């Protein structure tokens, strides 16, 4: 049974990782939102499984929050924002998709090599799960770097947070922090980005961050 538990945790973490790669692949904004929603649902499954294996009741709350907030409400809200503001819906990428995906594979190798020398870890989180979480974080950053649209940068950041939550749930017994991380992600998501997206649209005709940089107060 031990083997099955471990296998399933790895499988679910791997599913979240595959969704990360899928994020790199998307060219359309709505597809990006959908993939993010799927990733959050996979995360909810992974966290729920950890809750079951570790007998940690509070993780169920985290799973439910991931499912509801990040899987349904936030993508829905973002979709409404995109529709209402008529934001241009194809995402221009800085590098081609294939290159980004190869970079993603490179990041996977990097995180595996970095995690490999760790000799042993206490129960709950295996080395492989940590490598997965680290890769998801790095790919989240890659998504943020390779996109020029403010909304896709937010998505990249939230997928980074998904990786963080995955790592945090594996850390058995970490006090409070799982709830804090979820609360902070909700806070960040709604409070700040809501204000900013609306303000950005008010002043600029797009949410293309290249155009945003042109407005820097110190243009050389």
């Amino acid at each position, binding site marked *: 049974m031990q083997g099955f538990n471990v296998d399933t945790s790895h499988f679910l973490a791997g599913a979240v990782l595959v969704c990360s790669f899928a994020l790199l692949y998307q060219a359309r904004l709505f597809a990006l939102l959908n993939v993010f929603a799927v990733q959050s649902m996979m995360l909810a499954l992974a966290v729920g499984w950890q809750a079951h294996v570790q007998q940690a009741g509070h993780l169920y709350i985290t799973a439910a929050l991931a499912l509801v907030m990040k899987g349904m409400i936030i993508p829905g809200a973002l979709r409404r924002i995109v529709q209402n503001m008529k934001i241009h819906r194809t995402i221009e990428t800085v590098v081609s998709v294939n290159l980004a995906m190869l970079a993603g594979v490179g990041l996977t190798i990097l995180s595996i090599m*970095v*995690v490999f*020398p*760790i*000799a*042993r*870890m*206490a129960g709950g*989180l295996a080395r492989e799960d*940590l490598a997965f979480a*680290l890769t998801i*974080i790095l790919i989240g*950053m890659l998504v*943020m770097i390779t996109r020029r649209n*403010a909304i896709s*940068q937010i998505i990249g*950041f939230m997928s*980074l*947070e998904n990786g*963080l939550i995955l*790592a*945090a749930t594996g*850390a*058995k*017994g*970490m*006090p*409070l*922090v799982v709830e*804090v*991380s979820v609360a*902070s992600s909700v*806070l*960040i998501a709604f409070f*700040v*980005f809501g*204000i*900013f997206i609306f*303000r*950005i649209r008010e*002043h*600029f005709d797009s949410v293309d*961050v290249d155009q*945003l*940089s042109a*407005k*820097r*107060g*110190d243009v*050389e």
Partner: protein
Amino acid sequence: MTSLAFALILIVPVAGMVLLALISSYRIGAWLNVALSATAFAGSCLLFAVPMQTDTFFLVDSFNIYLVALNTLVGFTTSIFSASYIAHELEQETLTRGYLRFYHALYQAMMTAMSFALLSNNLGLMWVGIEVATLSTVVMVGIYRTAQAIEAAWKYFILGSVGIALAFFGTILLYLAAEQVLGEGAAALTWSLLVNDAAKFDPALLSLAFVFLLAGYGTKVGLAPLHAWLPDAHAEGPTPISAVLSGLLLNVALYAVLRIKMIMAGNAGAIPPGPIMMFMGLSSLIFAAIMLYRRRDIKRLFAYSSIEHMGIITFAFGMGGPLANFAGLLHMTMHSLTKSGIFFAVGHIAQAKRTQKLAGITGLAKSHPVLAWSLGIGVIAIAGVPPFGVFTSEFLVVTTTFVRQPILAGLLALGILIAFGALLMRLQQVLFGEPQGPSHKVSASSLPVLLHMGLVLLAGLWLPQILVDWFQQVARLLG
């Protein structure tokens, strides 16, 4: 006594924050803000009388006591400055009344969160404190709602959030490393326990944790290449926020890095934190010093100066050893006081001249002598001219580096000289010549600026022995 001090520093401001969010009158809000900051300062003075202690969540030792005092002092003087500054902005209608309630509430939230981070023994709670402080400043930076302000706030938000996330991951890794030795639960994140048992942790995990924590908190410190948010946030946010960011938040983030460094130092197998910090510090210094030459906005100029000084401080702490640590601590204090003083002056100057562009600010010596004097003293102080305190600490850093790593000392001195040149050149441009453009009366209290500069001068001329002992004690603690 301890609980009274903690209540004054942490709980009273939180209660006041709720009140501030409800008060709509600006005057009352501003005065309440000042009063709350004064209470916090009083609480931190009380802490000096309290014995050193650690419990599960809080920690009072020689390192953070003086930082809390510094924090609350600068917070107090900034609140005085902010009262008159924002009143003026309201008159000029560059700000609308509606958001100002949140401004004061967020100000208190930020101050409390910083004190909370400084006083906490639990690394997770420290992270929470720094994150709340950062988020409050993000909102406050965007308060002007011009295109540039939005851009600055957006960039700050994105980079700050990534920094927060990376620091959190580092905290998780640290927990994982400590869990094997200290068991699950809060004990594995308690700093005092971690420092004692550091040698037993897995070195690879610890190194990885350090990399992430340095990357995450280093973004908040403004080390190159993670500094991109800093100039914009300083320039586009209201000046009190620039003062607080430069003077306080950078210090608190560096404090977090140093606490982690102390843990790392206990483990021989992990990567040595010193050389990395030295490298980042030195590159920040040189980079910022060169960038100073091309700045056209006065607040950006001083923002890069902040990056430069944080680079020097990080370098000093990276070197380690009693003298370098002493120098670093002294520099932290001096920079905090001087930079916030400069920003006070700059804020009023920008209001008087209605512009922040350097090209539009000239001939201050003729049109606003008091402001000109305060700015002049401030810039001379920050450029490292004796007899101000900044000179003392910079001199100490350079000499101790020269003894141990002569080549780096050369680079260090070069960076400082480059910055010196740029600052003095700009100062001359701003102070002298014929006044151009609008020239308004600014009825502002000069007390905060003069207080800060006075303290810096005092420290340069005669550092009280009690303070020297204190710094030496902490320097020994830092290893």
